[in-house]
């Protein structure tokens, strides 16, 4: 009996602590939704209340969409993240297959370069890459947002590790069936690697949807802004005057990823945990 | 050394009952094997004894005192796990020292830095070292004490795990399939070693295994569990020779006992494959099953016959598989002389002695049979 009561007391303490922590974690989200639902008169009141007396979420959303071209910014985010991911896979998959399954002179040296590349943080190469894009004359365009990220050494590494576990017999069987090496990559290896590609896809899309540093550097034109850049500009223009609309805009920007995350939590946690390996 | 008593132990996980009321007494100094097919609840029973799993009903008594609700550490039992469960970051010596340090040192003495400078800790460490070295010498692992588990072979890890159990001189040893991760040769070797260890320690051993050969060769008593019930408890020879249940008969012995469909006739005599045996039963008439061990089938002569479908020559002995004419049943017979084996496809006649017959009713319970003429019991079973 004592053991039982001890267990339930501990279970209570566990829940109390976890709920307290969860409140801290969720507070910014709650505050964001609460503020986005308040009319200005309630936002600018020193009195604390989370539930608005006058529900103004719709008005704030309307104002956010009117002040900034949010649809366009979301679309930019989709265009950029999807292009980056597709190109990353197109570049990484053949290289990963060659590194995992083919013998050629220089393979080990190339793999060493890949491992070394993983260690380079993106901020480190920013200045020369910027100068290169400037020389190419592609700054302030989609190309500038996408091109530097088409190569993902981490993606190559990840796929290569995955491909090493694909049995050689499968590849030999494909060769016997007359499929070319290039065909093997897309018709044999890609289907086998779907779980790894999915995880990498989530990792890549989340990283680039949320990226602020690079778009900030290469973009000038308003219509090209990615979601994080849009929020930052919105804030610079409206902070201090229009918090309701600002919070509504923030909500709109984080919503796509959060909704996707809530729908496929396991995959997202796996995909993001990959960042740890990087 | 301890006498362990189990009374009406039940255990359910959610809705499924794993143990359905187990009563068992393990005598002081006994080597008792809990044996049964996987999933029969034997490991759960062991974990209930250890205190790792609380039972749903019933009580466990160690040396006369009820230990229900007492922590595993306070029951003074030692356990050797299937995976050995050695702490991977500690050397063999430190692994063996854990139970001693936990018991002999206070919390303050166990502190990483402060503890080591206390004089009382140094004194204790000296006796701990002496104790471990003594056990290590006994297990012949003295030269391995500084190694980490990853640097040890399977057999060596096994010995360290046994050593960790021995150092604190527990009242009983619990083994949870400790040999199943070893290769076949080493397993046979370790069987002999464990049996020897038991003889020298004279402590109570409770040993869980699904390997009937292991249980038969090591233990002083066997407890056969099937589907959460203790079906039979007894000495190995008794279990083998006198199974009280068809499932026990089939579980013990390799190759398996031959089970043939039979019938109790209205006059009480038993009929098999159309032949009436010189055996009667007092049970009501109806279907029954007749079990005969492979070594009790006598080939070459007799009223029964079958076609040879397969021959397994093991070198010192051979097993002949017979397909019975006009029935789906298959029989296995042991042949001691491997120089004269029948050809595959040939037909053989065979017979068996009346006292080789073990009869079971349709529910699988053993039924007693009496030979018609007691003084001719060695005679053939058939008229």
């Amino acid at each position, binding site marked *: 009996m004592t053991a039982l009561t001890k267990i339930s007391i501990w279970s209570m303490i566990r829940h109390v602590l976890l709920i307290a922590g969860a409140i801290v974690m969720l507070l910014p989200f709650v505050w964001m939704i609460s503020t986005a639902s308040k009319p200005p008169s309630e936002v600018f009141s020193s009195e604390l209340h989370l539930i608005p007396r006058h529900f103004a979420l719709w008005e704030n959303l309307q104002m956010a969409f009117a002040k900034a071209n949010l649809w366009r910014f979301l679309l930019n985010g989709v265009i950029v993240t999807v292009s980056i991911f597709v190109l990353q896979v197109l570049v990484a998959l053949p290289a990963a297959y060659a590194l995992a399954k083919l013998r050629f002179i220089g393979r080990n040296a190339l793999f060493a370069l890949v491992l070394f590349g993983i260690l380079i943080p993106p901020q480190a190469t920013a200045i020369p890459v910027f100068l290169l894009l400037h020389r190419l004359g592609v700054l302030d365009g989609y190309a500038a947002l996408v091109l530097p990220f088409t190569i993902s050494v981490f993606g190559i590494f990840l796929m290569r590790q995955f491909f090493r576990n694909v049995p050689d017999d499968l590849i030999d069987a494909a060769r016997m069936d007359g499929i070319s090496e290039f065909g093997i*990559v897309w018709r044999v290896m890609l289907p086998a690697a779907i779980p790894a590609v999915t995880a990498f896809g989530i990792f890549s899309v989340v990283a680039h949807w949320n990226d*602020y540093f690079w778009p900030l550097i290469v973009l000038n034109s308003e219509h090209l802004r990615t979601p994080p850049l849009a929020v930052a500009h919105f804030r610079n223009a409206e902070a201090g005057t229009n918090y309701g609309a600002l919070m509504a805009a923030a909500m709109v920007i984080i919503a796509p990823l959060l909704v996707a995350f*809530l729908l496929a939590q396991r995959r997202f946690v796996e995909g993001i945990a990959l960042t740890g390996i990087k | 050394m301890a006498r362990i008593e189990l009374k009406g132990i039940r255990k359910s996980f959610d809705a499924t009952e794993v143990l359905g009321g187990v009563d068992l007494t393990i005598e002081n100094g006994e080597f008792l094997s809990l044996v049964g097919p996987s999933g029969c609840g034997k490991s759960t029973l062991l974990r209930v004894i250890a205190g790792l799993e609380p039972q749903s009903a019933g009580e466990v008594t160690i040396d006369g005192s009820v230990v229900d609700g007492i922590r595993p550490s306070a029951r003074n039992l030692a356990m050797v796990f299937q995976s050995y469960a050695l*702490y991977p970051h500690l050397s063999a010596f430190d692994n063996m020292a854990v139970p001693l340090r936990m018991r002999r040192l206070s919390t303050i003495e166990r502190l990483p830095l402060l503890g080591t400078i206390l004089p009382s800790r140094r004194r204790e460490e000296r006796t701990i070292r002496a104790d471990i070295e003594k056990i290590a010498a006994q297990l012949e692992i003295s030269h391995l004490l500084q190694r980490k588990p990853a640097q040890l072979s399977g057999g060596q890890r096994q010995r360290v795990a046994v050593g960790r159990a021995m150092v604190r001189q527990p009242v009983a040893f619990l083994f949870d399939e400790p040999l199943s991760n070893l290769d076949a040769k080493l397993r046979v070797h370790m069987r002999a070693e464990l049996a020897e260890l038991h003889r020298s320690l004279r402590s109570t051993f409770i040993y869980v295994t699904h390997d009937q050969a292991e249980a038969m060769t090591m233990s002083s008593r066997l407890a056969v569990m099937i589907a959460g019930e203790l079906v039979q408890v007894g000495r190995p020879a008794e279990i083998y020779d006198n199974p009280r249940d068809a499932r026990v008969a089939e579980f013990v012995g390799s190759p398996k006992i031959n089970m043939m469909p039979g019938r109790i006739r209205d006059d009480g005599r038993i009929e098999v494959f159309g032949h009436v045996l010189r055996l009667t039963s007092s049970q009501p008439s109806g279907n029954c099953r007749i079990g005969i061990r492979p070594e009790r089938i006598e080939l070459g002569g007799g009223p029964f016959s079958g076609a040879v479908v397969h021959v397994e020559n093991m070198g010192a002995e051979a097993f002949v598989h017979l397909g019975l004419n006009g029935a789906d049943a298959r029989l296995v017979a042991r042949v001691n002389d491997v120089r004269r084996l029948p050809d595959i496809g040939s037909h053989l006649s065979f017979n068996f002695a009346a006292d080789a017959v073990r009869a079971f009713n349709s529910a699988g319970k053993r039924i007693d049979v009496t030979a018609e003429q007691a003084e001719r019991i060695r005679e053939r079973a058939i008229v």
Partner: protein
Amino acid sequence: MSDNAATIGGLAVPISIPKRAAQRRNPLLLTPYGLVAPALTLMLMMLLGPLAGVIALSFTDYQLGAPSLSWIGLANYHEMFGDRVFWTALRNTLVYVGIVVPGAVSAGLAIALLIQSGTSLRSLYRTIYFLPVMATLIAMAVVWEFMLHPQFGLVNGVLREFGIAGPSWLQDRSTALYALCAIGIWQAAGFNMVLFLAGLVSIPKQLYEAAEIDGASSAWARFRLVTWPLLRPVTTFVVVISGIRSFQVFDTVHVLTKGGPSKSTEVLIHSMYTEGFEFFRSGYGAALTVVFLGFILLLTLIKSRLADRGAQYA
């Protein structure tokens, strides 16, 4: 495969080996290079070339748009080491790392242990604590800014309830950096939790049972004997990863404080950004990048050193 074909062919018709083998081998010999060519080209162009470039640039006086550049040796580094702002940025970065790493690692560990210590509501808690990792940091930074608003913010509102007058967190030079640290911990804890959870799950259950039987009767004793030592490789890994990530702190600084007030939140990457992309002093920005790279390299070395040691008892 080509080798096999050649040998078989060779046994049958020895004379035709060279020709046949050459024909069969050529495509397979070149294919690997064809497959890796795009990746290799892009890698040299976007990663390794620029890396060499940034080091080379740090020894020049190049400014974006300037017609020429000249080799000025260590002049950028001399200027940097003589600049008070650089030392402030370095100090602030180290303070940030020194607060966020222990904070986010211990918070992640504590949350993971709490979640794993029971069975109910595990996935709900995991989801909640992971939410900040998923949310766009810039958007959440803006939310935090309003939460920390001196007058209308939630934090000071709560403090007022207790009769405490909260500071204007982000506008006060004595609190701004710590406010950014708090946001950093809030964002990173859930990520570390996931790594710790994976580590906890991989600890064999039988070790806890063995500990229990060996006499480790308190939760603390079992933590000391089993959890902590077996989690050590994960812990060092998480510490280094958190270190690398917090060295890169930029988003919150740029959008909330721009390094102010009076440089109290100036950090390395933000300095690099202002020098390289606002004043377009590419050479000087490159020198700042090299310092940043040095720290990342140091952390990576620590990581591989510790990983080697961890492998010994894996």
